[in-house]
Structures are given as C-alpha cells and as structure tokens.
C-alpha cells in the first residue's frame, strides 16, 4: 500500500513525515516498518525516530543539517521503504507474567458484569501489538483490548500508580514502568522491569513488538 507522504518541520530539530489521515492497523504496521528501516539505515545526523499513529517523527542535529536536506533524504527513504517489506526479524515477542490482583478489578467486574476469572482469561488470551511509546519512558500503549473489557479511563487520575501495575483503558492495555500519576484501571501487577535507565536499550518494549500476558498466582 503506497500513501502520499508529506514532510513538515516539528520545530527546529525534528521532521514529521505524515503517512495518512486515518488510523488503521495497516497504516500503523507500515509506519512501524518504515521506522525500523530508518533505524537500520543509520542516516547521518539522525538522533531519534518516534513512530506514532499517523506519522513518524525524526529528530536530527539541526546545527549540522538543514530542514531541506533532511526532509529530502527522509522522504526518499520512507518512499523506498514503502516499496519493500522491512525485516520482521527486528520485531520482538514478549511474555509478561501478571498477577491479577489490581485495586480496580472489583470495579471492572461490576462495570463489565464479568468475574475476575473471566477478566484474567480474556486479558491474557490475546497477543497485543505495541502501538507507540509515550507518556513516560518505557510506557507502551498495547492494542487491542477485548471489546468486553473496554471502559473509559477514570474521571480522576490517581496521583500515584505503582511501577509494574498492569492496567486497561478504552481499547488499550499497558504496564506502568515508573511510579507516576495514572488514569487507567489497574487490574494486576508484574515484576517485569519495563524500563531501566542502566539497561541497553532501557525500554523493554518497542513499537511493533508483540506482547502477551501470562497469568501467574
């Protein structure tokens, strides 16, 4: 599928390459594939590559490269990558052990009419895809949550959600990598380290990776 790519500056040191106007799993796969191809290309002056739902943003050293130069190179690379499939070997699979003991489980039970057992079973039955990273380091938005578990996020976020909390909101699920405020419903916990600044790479999950949850007692 080839789409018309458009480049736009995002301030002085980044360029956003837009792939389309409407979200779709297909568009996201293409964006992830292109982001991986850009990483592999090791283009000079590129400092970071951030895929999102409709676009890829590339951060670069603008003291040594101009917007015009970088936009031209990036558009050409992205266009080329659309024509060939990127190596799937770069996508990783993860199994995250979860204890379904979250503080919001009871509320989720009463809101969905499901028992704890059913919630645990449906949450751990799927293989999720990492849509994107954002919010805080290592926070990965995972799609797509079983329709029967989909609930709007909390009206009031909690001031503190503990690191390792497994949570759901709308059509996504996630694991909080740090102690932070949070507005998602906490259904469980994991000891898996999602983000470690001393590790390389520091974040466990990357966009496009596949994740499944494994229930543990």
């Amino acid at each position, binding site marked *: 599928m080839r789409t018309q790519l458009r480049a736009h*500056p995002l*301030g002085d040191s980044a360029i*956003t390459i837009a792939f389309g106007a409407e979200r779709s799993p297909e568009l996201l796969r293409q964006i992830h594939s292109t982001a991986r191809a850009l990483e592999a290309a090791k283009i000079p002056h590129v400092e970071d590559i951030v895929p999102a*739902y409709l*676009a890829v943003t590339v951060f670069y050293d603008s*003291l040594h490269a101009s917007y015009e130069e970088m936009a031209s190179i990036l558009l050409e690379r992205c266009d080329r990558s659309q024509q060939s499939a990127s190596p799937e070997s770069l996508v990783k699979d993860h199994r995250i052990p979860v204890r379904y003991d979250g503080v919001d489980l009871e509320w989720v039970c009463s809101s969905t009419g499901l028992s704890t057992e059913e919630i645990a079973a449906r949450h751990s039955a799927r293989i999720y895809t990492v849509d994107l990273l*954002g*919010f*805080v380091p290592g926070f990965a938005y995972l799609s797509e949550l079983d329709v029967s578990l989909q609930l709007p996020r909390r009206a009031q976020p909690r001031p503190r959600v503990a690191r390792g909390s497994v949570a759901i909101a709308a059509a996504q699920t996630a694991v909080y990598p740090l102690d932070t405020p949070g507005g998602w419903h906490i259904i469980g916990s994991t000891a898996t380290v999602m983000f470690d*600044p001393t590790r390389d790479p520091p974040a466990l999950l990357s966009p496009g990776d596949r994740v499944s949850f494994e229930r543990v007692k």
Partner: protein
Amino acid sequence: MDGFALCATNAMVGNSLAAAALEWALGGGTVRFERDCAFAIGGASARASLSGRMVAPCTTTYASAGTELSVEQITGGRFLYLAVNGGIDVPLLLASRSTYLPGRFGGYQGRTLKNGDAVPVAERESEAPAEGFHCAADLLPRYDSGIVHATRGTQEELFDESDWLTITESEYRVSTASDRTGYRLEGPALRNSLGALPSESSCPGAIQITGDGLPIVLMSDAPTVGGYPKIAVVSEADLPILAQRRPGEGIRFALTSIEQSQRAHRRRLADLHTISQQASRSTAG
C-alpha cells in the same frame, strides 16, 4: 529550561558547553564551596553575594574554600544557573548528567537538592578565565523583549485566519500553572478549539491548543507524544526567553520560517563559542 544560560555560564568558567551545572528555580539559598574554585551565575538576575561581596551575573568569580555564595532573591527571570570550573560530577545516565524528575532518576539521586547535600565537582580540565571576565550583553538572548519566535506546527491547516491573527497579535501571559512540564498561557482563546487527535510526537516548545482554545507550551519534562493540535513550535533560539518569563509576565509570538529559525539557532551556538573563545583568551594563568 534555559539551555543558553546553562551553556554560557559553563563557558564563563572554562568548561565545555555541555558540562553539568546547577539549575536554581526561584527562591533564595546558600551554597558553600569546599575548595578553591571559579564559578559563574547567569540566566535569571539575582541579588547574590560571596562572603558579603556582591556577585555580578555572567562574570567569572573566584571563591576560596569555605566561602559561601548566598542568593538572597531572584529579581528577574526564574531560572538561575550556577556553573563551577570542572563541572558537576554526578554519574552519566543515558549519556547525560541531567535530572529527570518525573522518573526520579539521573542527576543527583534523581531529585532536587536539599539542605546538607554535598555536590561533587570534577577536577578542572581547563583553565577558568581571569576573575571579572564578563560576557558581553549583546551575546545573550534578549530576555526582556518577550518576543518569542515560532515556526508553524504540524497541524497548521486545522487553524484558520482568525486563529493565526489571534496567536500572533495578542499578548499572552504565563500563568501560575507553569513548570518544567509546560507553561499554560492566559490570553485570548483561539476560536478553533479542536478535540484530541491521534497521538503524535511532540517536543519542547510545541504550542498545543487544548479544549478551551488556550495555548500550553510544552517544556523540558513534557511527555513525548500527545493528541492536542500544535499550532506552532517555539524556535530553539527563543526558548530561553520564554522559559525565563515569570507567572504574570507577557510574551508575544512572532511566526518565522524554518530557515530563519534554524539560522537563529546556529547563531546562538556561534555566540556561545564566541564567549568560550573570549574566555580562553582571558585565562588567569
């Protein structure tokens, strides 16, 4: 928050521009130097003294072991930088010595400094300039102008004529809801207050228009992706000017092209190198 002042104060003590220094946000305090060293303060203006003698900003000052730098009050701006010859010696993490407060890692134990903290300073690599070396005012950003240049944002086509007029012709005031994550601005609301869009990468300086039509400018500790439409992005050359605006102070946005914005960014770096060169010509030894 004011990256220019951080680099400039480093240059004034003979450090590389990227050495670690202290960022001091509003309020007074005292720092004791445990060994002889050269230091400089810059960014915000402050009433400061070293053992009773007034300390001028943007000026290389020598302190002997045991003397104290006392910052009585920050009189203009909001972020004061203190650079010491040698640089602050905390461990490198993710290739940086800076503090990431939301994640509580990096810098000095991932937190702001408290009374009694002993902050290590590395052995000096290079000579500091002579006492009294002063950085020329015309090399510094024009903090008092309150004019902040910006390039058009990635959702520019979602805003209409009246929005562009509003954002460029109005004075906005920094509200009290302003911190390292972002600065909320008070002033005329844009007519087109669009809802959230699919999340997209953003950056410090991005001017988001939220549901009430008012701008929030993302700053250093902002989340890296977001769903609010961005009307423009503050030029890196002018982020220091915005960062130093206190709650209640006004700014005006001026749109500029990406070419001019990048040129201004490079000019700031050239000015920092000029400060470094002048500093090394004026060494004490």
